[in-house]
């Protein structure tokens, strides 16, 4: 280590001495992880002492056009951090089994100090995460930031969104209440209707003939073991590529300048947004807590569903109003957008000069918003509830059996008393016939 780093004065206090030791003996390699996670900007020489590396990272200058719109990615990331922290704390108490899942949620909400806040911040962050993620995606799309050389990062970003959706989908079942159970049942049964692969995928998701303890176990494993590792890998790749390629240039080149410093301008902005976001999420959690439904019961279809996750709202609306094919086509549109950078390789980044790409994205955005609005209003019983009315709508026995018997007997026999017996078993509709096709309810 250079001697100059030790300073002119010898530290006197024990704390100062320890601090000085840490600074002088630790180099910038330790900051690599923070840089990978997007918490520090700028290239840093490896063998720098850590205090100098910090200073250099803070002095890094971002392009001048970086503004509030560029904070959307940071907001998404911040929400993900909220999810991780609250999720880890929830996992201290949550027990993933059919018998214990529901009581453990009750325990968290009613017995653990601030347990209600952990749960509802987790729930609200899950919804806001998707909204912020889609907003970030749109900002990147319309500013043409997905164009080469950043096309790989576009794909990784989309994979991250998909991972977040998978997080939500697997987490949605975990409370094991009626709403969670039947919403999952409906979505899985829709997946079952997907052409070619639907049946296989659905059976892999369920792990059983129906949504059961096996499904709960695999959803929990995916939610807390597999998906976190996948998302961590994707996040590191995402940030590494952001560092590699830098922030995308603006559509209309601005006058060359020195840009804005990471500290204090960008970091203070990010801090403000983070604080605001945390306050907003806590407020939503306190004002609009997710109610706990009745315990999951595969034999009882609930009278109403309460959806609390934006993806469920969108999916349910597509399923109910457009059927399985609606969901398939909407997913197909997402796939087209996914691979768009492979075909749209012109350097043009102004959205007004990219009509096809802009139309596709606008279509997806409008569809998403409409489906979200429609889905949030559903609050209804899933089509699978049609299993139940076969009991309610069972035909009453024929009016006063003798009336039927005598009428038929008069026609069939010479004398009423000697009529051949009529096997008057009430004809009931076959359950299979009575059950409407999924999605037909809303058409």
């Amino acid at each position: 280590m250079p001697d100059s780093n030790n300073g002119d004065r010898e530290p006197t206090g024990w704390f100062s001495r320890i601090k000085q030791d840490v600074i002088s003996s630790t180099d910038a390699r330790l900051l690599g992880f923070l840089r990978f996670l997007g918490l520090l900007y700028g290239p840093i020489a490896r063998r720098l002492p850590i205090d100098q590396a910090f200073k250099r990272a803070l002095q890094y200058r971002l392009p001048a056009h970086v503004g509030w719109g560029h904070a959307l990615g940071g907001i998404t990331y911040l929400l993900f951090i909220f999810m991780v922290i609250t999720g880890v704390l929830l996992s201290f108490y949550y027990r993933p089994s059919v018998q214990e899942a529901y009581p453990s949620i009750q325990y968290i909400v009613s017995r653990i100090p601030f347990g209600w806040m952990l749960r509802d911040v987790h729930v609200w962050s899950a919804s806001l995460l998707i909204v912020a993620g889609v907003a970030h995606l749109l900002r990147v799309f319309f500013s043409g930031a997905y164009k080469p050389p950043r096309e790989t990062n576009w794909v990784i970003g989309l994979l991250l969104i998909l991972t977040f959706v998978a997080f939500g989908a697997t987490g949605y079942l975990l409370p094991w209440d009626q709403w969670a159970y039947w919403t999952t049942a409906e979505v899985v049964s829709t997946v079952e209707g997907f052409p070619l692969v639907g049946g296989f995928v659905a059976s892999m998701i369920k792990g059983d003939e129906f949504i059961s303890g096996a499904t709960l176990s695999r959803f929990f494993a995916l939610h807390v073991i597999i998906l976190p590792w996948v998302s961590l890998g994707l996040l590191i790749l995402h940030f590494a590529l952001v560092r590699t390629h830098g922030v995308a240039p603006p559509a209309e080149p601005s006058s060359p300048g020195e840009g804005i410093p990471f500290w204090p301008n960008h970091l203070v902005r990010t801090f403000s947004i983070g604080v605001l976001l945390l306050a907003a999420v806590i407020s939503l959690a306190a004002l609009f807590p997710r109610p706990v439904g009745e315990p999951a019961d595969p034999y009882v279809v609930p009278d109403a569903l309460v959806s609390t996750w934006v993806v469920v709202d969108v999916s349910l609306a597509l399923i109910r109003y457009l059927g399985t094919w609606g969901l398939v086509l909407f997913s197909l549109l997402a796939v087209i957008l996914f691979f768009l950078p492979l075909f749209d390789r012109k350097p043009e980044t102004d959205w007004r000069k990219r009509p096809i790409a802009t139309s596709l994205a606008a279509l997806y955005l409008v569809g998403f918003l409409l489906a979200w609005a429609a889905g949030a209003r559903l609050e209804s019983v899933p089509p699978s509830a049609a299993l139940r009315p076969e009991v309610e709508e069972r035909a009453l026995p024929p009016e006063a059996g003798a009336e039927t018997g005598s009428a038929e007997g008069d026609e069939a026999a010479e004398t009423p008393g000697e009529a051949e017996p009529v096997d008057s078993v009430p004809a009931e509709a076959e359950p299979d016939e009575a059950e409407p096709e999924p999605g037909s309810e809303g058409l």
Partner: protein
Amino acid sequence: MSWAPRIRSALLFVAIAGLPSSANGQERTDREIVRQLGAAGSQYGCVICHKDKRRAFAEGAHANRGIVCHDCHGGDPEAVEKEPGHAAPFIGVPTKLETVRICGDCHSDPNQMRPFGLPADQGAELRTSRHGELLFYRDDQNAPTCTDCHDSHTIRPPEDARSDVHPLNIMGTCVACHDDEEMMAGYELPTGQGEVYRASAHGIGLYEHFNFAAPTCISCHGSHSALPASTTQVADVCSQCHALVGQAFYAGPHGPATRAGQMPGCLACHSNHGTELVPVEAIEAVCSGCHEDAESDAAAMGTDIQTLLMRAEGNIHSAEEAIHELGAAGRETDDARFRQRAALTDFHRMGPAQHSLDVQALEDLGRRVSSVSANIRNQAEVAAEQRWEHTLLLAPTWFLALAAIFLAYLRLRQTKREA
């Protein structure tokens, strides 16, 4: 007739009856069967002409009991032509009275009925009934005989859902005659009881909930001993099922009055076939139907009972809502549900208890319901209060957040000034 041909005939008949008989699935026609039997040197003559009766009889309970046509109708079953076949002793189509005798030959014999667990007193019961009175003593041909309710050839046991006397079908069997206005006018009997019954609590229980414990016509009137209960007997009939209600009823002032024939028992408030459940809010009005003086003690008692029951009902609903609120707030509800069930039991005990007109007993039960309900309600209110307290957290949260943002703003402003 000696025993040998009789046994042979019975075996042949059972063999024929056991062959496939449905028109669609039939592999051989009846004519082919008869031809085959003739070729084998044996025949059962009746089925040559009366094959439709054979088919009907084969579906009934008697087909497998060794009973054949000539046991009831006489004649010579070995004859293959009508005239010798119908030779004496030939009964043909029995009269109504002959039917009772023919059926009674077996069904009044305890020794024959014992293996099947059937009573042997239906004939005697029929004789004591209104139907029997008309049939035996007035030779009234409108009066039903055995085959009018049980069919003549396809006689199925009551537990067979296709039987005319199955609980789901018995009402239809009765109203076949009792809805005939012309016929009933001769006996000064009203019609339409079937429809009223179908809409009653009993009818709904039977036809909508398939509750076979629900009474049918014969549960109150008797089957073979069919007779309407007299005014003084109604409460006894009802209390066969509504035992606690009956007990309370006779413990109160209305019971002795019913025994004395001063009031029509249960029918004073509930109708006979309609069996309406008097809504809680209509109790006072029902009481005033007899106790017209609104100032009387009896009318005041009606008001008190209605008030107590309405209050208890409200408490039960309130407890249910509170449990729902507790559940939605993530509270454990097992204990509250258990207590609410206990309160519900007390509330249901108020139903029978009101028939004794014991206001004190009702007040005691009502207090227990109220106490449990208040306790559960209190739990829900505590939960709601705690939930409201969560919102108090917003004040420090937003104070800190805005303070932090303000400081950040100051820092940014300072940076701009320095720049």
